[in-house]
């Protein structure tokens, strides 16, 4: 029941915030803040209250189910495991940040803004919690509309175009997922006679390889576009750069994660054979994304666009890791989801700070800000370093684990992905260079340093990144049972390190084939 409350509080808070605007101008902010704090409190309580359960046999901590459309076998089914709990923590934390960041930035239609903000969060919460595929699709769509409004109403100059693009891309891919969900539903129904959308029931569907492949592509469509993976990333730079800061933070920090979450939660367990077949291609896409995103990020002059392309690059690691099918990679992916949420969110916040002061996002018009705003410089430096994967900060753990994992699966692709790290350095340092180091060609107005409210936003993110970089174990522990659960179907595909190592020498193609044969053999058992 407590899970339902999470969603209800957000939705009710949103409505209340909207209505309260008439009453007092500032009240929506406080209402929104209150409701997100409440949900954050609940989640933190959940986290602290049940660490023991995470180590138990079942990864599920809490479950809740209520029939919804019984005729179709749809139920309002929520469940919480370590992975969802982590995602929820991230959601509410970034939600909080998003509200704080908008405190001054959003001046008109405050009530409606917070309504949308909270409903996006509610939709995301639903996506992370639901265990019914119909409901999943439902929430998947629910989170898009308020996001569309956030971009379309409070965005920058080109907001309408960006909002359309965002909406159409995500909807199109979502519909393909719907088709796949329905296909799965009917196949399962015709096999067992019970038509249900329940995740746990559908896990036991046995699929013909052809069907599994098609259905997997349906799911992949939605998740790969959301993630996004090159060549489906085209919506992201526009949406990110045109959204208001809070919108960018939520887009980068949370919406992209729903794609990664979907891969972990649905694609892997539902289609074990098909994913193994597809894995090399998926990893290839990941690597292409890493490199392509990095190259594009390097050439951008719009700060938010630049950061947006870094997201493309970073999300490449996610898909690379997911399709490596081992615990290192998956834990890396989970870490990547969280740390990318923090670091990229933080970079967008930074862009927001700059935009608020300078009314431009063009880095050619910036420069030499370190001397004028040293605090901002330090903060920016830390986030930039996080984004280029400096050890000691969370992203490093994520990327390293992912790469360690993916190395076991595919050597050459991992090599190229690692090269992406160099490119990450190039574009990340470009931010520092252009914004904070070399003097600007254009005179800029006074640039006040970070205020205490802004420090209040930035500080927890820095602490979080450092904590994740130096002692990520609590997070990893929390995610571990879930990761195991998702990997169950692949238990055989974990490479025995030493065996592979001995055979590993030059011909890497051989390793691959050995690896796949082993995987296939194990699956047959």
């Amino acid at each position: 029941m407590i899970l339902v409350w999470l969603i209800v509080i957000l939705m009710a808070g949103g409505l209340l915030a909207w209505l309260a605007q008439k009453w007092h101008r500032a009240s929506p902010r406080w209402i929104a803040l209150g409701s997100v704090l409440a949900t954050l409190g609940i989640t933190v309580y959940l986290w602290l209250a049940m660490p023991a359960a995470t180590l138990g046999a079942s990864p599920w901590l809490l479950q809740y189910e209520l029939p919804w459309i019984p005729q179709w076998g749809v139920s309002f089914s929520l469940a919480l495991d370590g992975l969802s709990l982590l995602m929820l923590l991230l959601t509410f934390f970034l939600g909080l940040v998003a509200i704080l960041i908008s405190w001054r930035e959003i001046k008109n239609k405050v009530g409606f803004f917070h309504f949308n903000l909270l409903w996006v969060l509610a939709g995301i919460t639903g996506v992370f919690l639901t265990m019914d595929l119909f409901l999943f699709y439902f929430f998947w769509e629910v989170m898009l509309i308020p996001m569309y409004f956030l971009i379309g109403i409070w965005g920058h100059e080109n907001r309408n175009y960006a909002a359309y693009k965002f909406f159409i891309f995500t909807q199109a891919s979502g519909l393909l997922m719907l088709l796949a969900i329905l296909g799965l539903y009917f196949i399962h129904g015709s096999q067992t006679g019970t038509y249900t959308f329940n995740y746990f029931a559908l896990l036991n569907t046995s699929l013909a390889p052809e069907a599994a492949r098609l259905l997997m592509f349906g799911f992949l469509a939605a998740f790969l576009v959301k993630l996004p993976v090159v060549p489906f990333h085209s919506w992201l730079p526009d949406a990110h750069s045109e959204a208001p800061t809070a919108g960018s933070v939520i887009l980068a920090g949370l919406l992209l994660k729903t794609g990664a979450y979907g891969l972990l939660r649905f694609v892997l367990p539902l289609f074990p054979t098909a994913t193994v077949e597809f894995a090399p291609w998926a990893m290839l896409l990941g690597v292409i994304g890493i490199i392509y995103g990095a190259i594009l990020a390097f050439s951008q002059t719009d700060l938010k666009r630049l950061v947006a392309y870094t997201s493309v690059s970073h999300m490449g690691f996610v898909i690379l890791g997911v399709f490596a099918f081992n615990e290192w990679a998956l834990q890396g992916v989970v870490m990547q989801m969280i740390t990318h949420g923090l670091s990229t969110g933080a970079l967008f916040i930074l862009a927001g700070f700059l935009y608020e002061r300078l009314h431009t996002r063009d880095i050619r018009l910036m420069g030499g800000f370190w001397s004028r705003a040293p605090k901002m410089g330090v903060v920016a430096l830390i986030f930039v370093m996080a984004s280029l994967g400096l050890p000691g900060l969370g992203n490093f753990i994520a990327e390293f684990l992912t790469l360690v994992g993916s190395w076991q699966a595919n050597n050459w692709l991992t090599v190229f992905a690692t090269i992406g790290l160099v490119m990450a350095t190039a574009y990340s340092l470009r931010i520092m260079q252009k914004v904070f180091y070399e003097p600007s060609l254009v005179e800029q107005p006074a640039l006040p340093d970070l205020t205490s409210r802004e420090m209040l936003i930035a500080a927890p993110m820095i602490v979080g990144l450092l904590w994740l970089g130096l002692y990520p174990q609590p997070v990893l522990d929390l995610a571990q049972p879930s990761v195991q659960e998702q990997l169950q179907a692949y238990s055989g595909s974990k490479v025995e390190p030493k065996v592979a190592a001995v055979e590993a020498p030059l011909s890497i193609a051989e390793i691959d084939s050995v690896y796949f044969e082993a995987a296939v053999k194990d699956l047959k058992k």
Partner: protein
Amino acid sequence: MADLLWLIPALPFAGALLLVLFGNRISRGLVTAIGAGSVGISAAITLLLGIEYLSSQPAYYHQEVWNWFNVAGFNPSIAFHLDALSMVFIFVITFVGFLIHVYSTEYMAEDADYSRFFACMNLFVGSMLVLVMADNLLLLYLGWEGVGLCSYLLIGFWYKEPANGYAARKAFIITRVGDTAMAIGLFMLFQAFGTLHIQTISTEAVQLWDTGAQMAVIIAFLLLGGAVGKSGQLPLQTWLPDAMAGPTPVSALIHAATMVTAGVYLIARMHVIFELAPVAMMAVAAIGAVTLLIAGFAALTQYDLKRVLAYSTISQIGYMFLALGVGAWSAGVFHFMIHAFFKALLFLCAGAIILALHHEQDMRKMGGLRTSMPVVFWTFLIGAASLAAFPLVSAGFYSKDQILWLQLAGENGSVWLYAAGLLGAFVTSIYTFRMVFITFYGKAKTHVGHQPTMAIKVPLIILAVLSLVGGFIELPHNFGHVVLFSDFLSPILPTISVVPGFDQYEWMLQLLAAVVSLSGIYIAYLFYISKPELLASIHRSSTAMAVHRFWHSGWGFDKLYDILLVRPYVFLANVNKRDVIDGFYTGLARVTEGFHMMLSETQSGVLRNYVAGVVVGAIMILTISIFL
């Protein structure tokens, strides 16, 4: 005492943190106290620990601070491991680092960003300490990257000059290229051993692989890639000369105590792997040889005082690689230590000069400083002598001589390597004394402003002394046979076996080395003091000038990389700035719009056309119903 191990890196980190958080709000004195003090305490702890280590002779100290993370058996800790090798390194790092800190208090006194400077310096020292004390390769990698970050911050310390920023960026990116190779090496090591714990790897590697095993070779090459990047060796050396953009103490720190020696440390640390891969060893030696020559010749032509020193660093590290490559592990480490002393000394002297000459770095505008800055002159001369391996008195002579000797005497040595080393030594003494003569002799060309005070002089003198006497802890056997240093390292690093019966020729080689060194000095004297017309005649020859330009540009590597890598990348990035894939979707939208336009034409608003539309539909339906 071993419980305090963690304090050694933690103190500089704590200092950095304090300075970042409060640096702007506290007095300069306090900044100095925190900045230099933290490193000083580290140095003190190191000293105490070293004494204890020497007296009790344990195999190593180990301390786990906390478990970093644990994923499916991948379980690196934040744990420190201190053995003789690390001991040498932390000693150098903390002591030389401390001296440089002290020196900086004066050098940077006028700078507005005083606290930022010390924060970065502390971070630098801390990272380097983590690097050399790490008990697993992941933690080592943390320090490794941290060093890269600090180099970036410090090289770009005076960020307002765009060139400095670019130099900083270049340093970070190029070293990161090496790091990437190293990271891949780590993946392979992990795949092979299921851990990155250095001790475990070292013990298990021998069981797992035979000498020359392909895996070992690949890994060794990848680690070498990392080492080459950090240590400024061929082909990733181009960042180092540009790194002179930072304040001089930073250069001293980078070149003497930290950063560039990391590669040496890595190879020494992973010597087990390298020994399993003779090809990689050969590569190390070859890289060292080629690098030391290229850098030496490049140094000959530089005018910027610091650039000369920078190339000399590249060259000297080439010597260390040469030593490591033939398996003369302790010789390489010994040269590292001695090099740290004299290179720090030379940089600090150069800093004093630059400070005195109002940040003038061009040697052509210096001269006659011998009289105006006597302390600096003498200390610089000592450093130069050491660098040029001035026979008998300088420490550099002993360390370099050992390396050269082992090129021939060592099992894996070869005449070619020896010849390269010898030629390098010759060039070294030429450019070293070219520098000395141009800077300190002749007419004064720039007014001497700031005269160094105690904070500068004391470190200079200490380092000068060390540059002189440091060599006496390891003397050739025909010269007193002191083997304190190699003994100290022997539990960790295997001793090199010398070809039997070769000993009796050692004095000949020493003599040769001494002659080479002295003749180099003489040539420099000839060109720059006694017969400047010789130089002028060279300047008239167009071939010579072409060579000069070529060397001056660092053998054209910058240009080469620019054309091969940087420009294509930038070009690609800029061409694709608008994202071709986006163009595809835009095209799709356009096509759809085109369909809309076409269909819109049918909605002409004319009733007859609509009727015709219905009729067309009727024909369609009837055709289908009749013919299908």
